[in-house]
């Protein structure tokens, strides 16, 4: 099980959390990979990439279901990244006795279309700030509709739902306009 304060930390941009995290795990993680034949520079790069993977998983609620400890899981992500790197370089790597679990390092189970992603990026930028704030609070910060009533000063849950639906509709229209010229 992964402690919820770690998951919350990855979901935040709390500088102190990342500073503490770096101080706690950097040395051991890099040592773990360099012992397997990865260069220090690559090990540091993998450490950074693994942190980004953990962040993504935290946002996608994938860490709540993990049954092993945080450290075991985090190091397994690093091991997989090391495999990927060495495969790209046509080298082999041996992790004989680490007993680390298999992990899925993809962002999410659902596949996203690259062209659609680009269009969303572009149109989110030009959206009104109220809509962007509402969508970010819901999709990224994971605030529930109930919480949005309080933080956004809405009348009730239905008002939030209606506003969210209007914002999504607006975004869809902008994307469609973009696709069809």
């Amino acid at each position: 099980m992964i402690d919820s304060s770690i998951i919350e930390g990855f979901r935040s941009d709390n500088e102190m959390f990342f500073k503490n995290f770096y101080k706690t795990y950097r040395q051991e993680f890099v040592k773990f990979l360099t012992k397997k034949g990865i260069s220090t520079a690559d090990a540091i790069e993998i450490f950074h990439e693994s942190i980004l993977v953990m962040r993504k998983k935290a946002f996608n609620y994938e860490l709540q279901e993990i049954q092993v400890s945080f450290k075991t899981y985090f190091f397994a992500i690093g091991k997989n990244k090391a495999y990927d790197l060495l495969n790209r370089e046509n080298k082999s790597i041996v992790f004989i006795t680490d007993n680390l679990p298999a992990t899925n390092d993809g962002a999410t189970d659902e596949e996203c279309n690259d062209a659609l992603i680009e269009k969303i990026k572009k149109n989110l930028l030009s959206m009104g700030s109220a809509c962007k704030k509402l969508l970010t609070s819901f999709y990224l910060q994971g605030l529930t509709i109930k919480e949005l009533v309080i933080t956004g000063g809405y009348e009730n849950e239905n008002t939030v739902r209606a506003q969210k639906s209007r914002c999504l509709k607006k975004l869809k229209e902008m994307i469609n306009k973009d696709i069809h010229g």
Partner: protein
Amino acid sequence: MDKENLIEKYFEGTLTAEEKLRLDKLLESDIELKEEFNLQIAIKQVMISEGEPALKAKLKDLEKSYRSTNKQSISFLIKWPAAAILIIAFALVFIRTFTPKDVHEDLFLTYFTPAENIHYPITRGNVDNELKLAFSAYESKNFEQALILFKQLQESNEFNELKLYLGSSYLAIGDTENALEVLIITNLDDESSRYRIQWYRALALVKSGNVEEAKTLLNDLVINGDFELKKAQKLLEKLP
């Protein structure tokens, strides 16, 4: 429960196993719903990826400071072995004596993020407005500058809610004493401020090691409040 509610719960992270199965089945059979769902997934992934460049830059900075700290301590150990032994001995005594303080500090660091500006939104125009300048500094995390401006504004007694942002700024720069002096709950506080001030006061108390008083505030927040309820509950469970 209708389809929209299932999707809503998916993004809130509150789907039960049974509801997840229902949603999966619906997505297999309803093409329109699948399209709508995929669009929302894509929006979320874009939002997640938007924060990555900033985090990458932050990690590079952390690596730089990690290396420079490491380099300094290694060269010190080589040059001054006797002094290093004394320092290590002192550190061991220090750790044994002050471990509880570290626990409080760690808990504070885990749960503290500067208060979100909900009272004085920065809008276009009024470029020279002092309030806008203060919150621009605050939102850019330039807390020292924000404190100077907030203090000037506070003298006018016009902005009661400023104490929340003053307290939050003091906490961000590690000045717990002053934070506790300004984060005081009064009858003048409106509903939206009261429990925010209470949350940040509780955090300041945790940091200063005043656990019992922090627990009282957190318990009241969990029962009666409307802000950071989950975090307050978790913090309560972790407090020694």
